[in-house]
């Protein structure tokens, strides 16, 4: 039991909350600050959001990022799920597991250099498509890992039961396998989207030089060299809001899937 007068505990809790959420609160508050300064409050205003909507560089970068993240998510989720299902059929192999983990643990900078060298070697023009290909590479591993945990306690007699009841392989996948592993697939997709959305190093290496293939993290990085502008706070607040809604949805979905078992 926690006693109310246990001030040491309350202090601990307060500090933890402060370190976790302090930066976020500051960000959100500043995005509504008329003055746009970290040091003084000039009243509530939406003017930085208005400024953001007129910053075409940021908007085009945001659109690029959404394209990259969405396409990456779709491709990586399909390939990663197929990979996970295929591997589950094989005998357990530590070597294969290590190979699958490699893209997750290899430092981004190493992967980025490798990808750039490969693209140069095969003479591929750089652009959004090369960022997408690069993001797919490491996201396959993440999706695969998430889906595999879901497949771990998958009862394979369900597949036989479905076959026994006259279902084709495709029907079995659509009506039995996918609905059961869907929370895992969705969680994997969400992870892939998030990772792709804020990925900087690999995108920076594989984007080429044109403004048309600049993603949001790259754009913000280039702007930050000249100090943080308040419209970036507004942008960050929007991104956070969207992320929160996505995570909340994922949690609810997972809960429904669990209680349905």
């Amino acid at each position, binding site marked *: 039991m926690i006693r109310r007068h246990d001030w040491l505990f309350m202090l601990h809790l307060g500090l933890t909350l402060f370190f976790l959420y302090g930066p976020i609160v500051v960000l959100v508050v500043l995005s509504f600050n008329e003055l746009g300064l970290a040091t003084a409050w000039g009243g509530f205003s939406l003017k930085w959001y208005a400024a953001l909507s007129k910053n075409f560089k940021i908007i085009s970068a945001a659109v690029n990022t959404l394209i990259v993240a969405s396409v990456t998510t779709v491709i990586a989720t399909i390939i990663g799920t197929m990979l996970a299902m295929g591997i589950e059929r094989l005998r357990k192999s530590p070597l294969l597991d290590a190979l699958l983990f490699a893209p997750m643990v290899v430092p981004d900078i190493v992967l980025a250099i490798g990808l750039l060298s490969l693209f140069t070697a095969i003479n591929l023009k750089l652009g959004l498509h090369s960022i997408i290909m690069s993001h797919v590479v490491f996201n396959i591993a993440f999706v695969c890992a998430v889906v595999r945990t879901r497949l771990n306690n998958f009862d394979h007699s369900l597949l036989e039961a479905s076959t026994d*009841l006259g279902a084709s392989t495709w029907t079995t996948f659509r009506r039995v396998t996918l609905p059961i592993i869907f929370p895992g697939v969705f969680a994997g997709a969400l992870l892939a989207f998030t990772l792709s959305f804020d990925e900087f190093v690999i995108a920076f290496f594989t984007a080429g030089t044109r403004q048309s293939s600049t993603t949001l993290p790259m754009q913000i990085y280039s702007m930050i060299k000249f100090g943080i502008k308040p419209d970036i706070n507004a942008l960050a607040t929007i991104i956070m809001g969207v992320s929160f809604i996505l995570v909340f949805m994922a949690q609810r979905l997972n809960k429904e899937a669990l209680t349905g078992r």
Partner: protein
Amino acid sequence: MIAKNVIELRNIVKQYGAVRVVDDVSFELRESEFFALLGPSGCGKTTLLRVMAGFADPSSGQMLLDGQDMVRVPPRRRPLNMMFQSYALFPHMTAEANIRYGLENARLPKEEIARRTAEIMVTTQLTEFARRKPAQLSGGQRQRVALARALVMRPRVLLLDEPLGALDKKLREAMQLELKRLQNELGITFVVVTHDQEEALVMADRIALMRGGRVEQIGPASELYEKPTSRFVADFIGQSNFFEGTASGSQISVDGLGLLHGPNDASVSGAAVLSVRPERIKVNTTPVRSFDNSFAGTVREIAYHGQDEHIHVEFDDWKRPVIARLPAYDETVQQIHEGTRVWLSWNGRDARILAH
């Protein structure tokens, strides 16, 4: 009446590497019979069932269904359905959706799907649970959903893999009779895989007892119990006392006990064993003359089993315990206790002489 054969298995072999899990098995399943594949774990009974369902390809051999070879037919095109040991219910579907699943795959008209689903749910007493998901059902209800899901397909043969294994004793006994009732009512051939000899005896019309991938004996339940053809069968089904010796004709010579009498039609000679069921042995506190076999001994232990008692007796010249079973109300039981002198007797016709 000669019943038609539904399935004929001819020299089925299933090999994993050098191990023959199913080793040259041939038998036939008849129309509307309740058939049990019985045996200890690892005897190949489940593999044989999976060969019939099509989930395992036989290494060699033929399986005919209504005269047609099934070996190359994929499981989803076989008019057989299986009830899995784990039930394998789809966790994300309601009981009703689980049951309808197979009919939907068969692309039957909507009205027929609805009618047949409703019918089978009445038969299996599931109507009130139609909208529940498997996690919200009890073990017995889940078992009935699994059964209904297979039966609604109206298979030629229903394959059941340890169907009652996950239920507790009371429910298991009720379900044994329930399965028997359903099988009678629907007239579908049932093949049950079980390791429980009592379950097989209660439910099955015929039993195939398997051992090491082979069929040891096949026949009506009463035949396997009363007329086992090997020591393994006599030992696996029910309980038996065994006396090893050398047989000739209807007699067997046992070291320490002398000549024991078996049934007149015994035809084994050489190393053999005489098998006698505990309930065939009479217990007396005075010598008796009217039996073919009678031996004096001392009661070592009395095990109370409720409806009957198992008397463990040590013969004067035979150091292994011999077990006799008496109803608890038998008056002899009242007179004996540990250390009592008793005479155990049985007639040759109630024993079996089996090759050793």
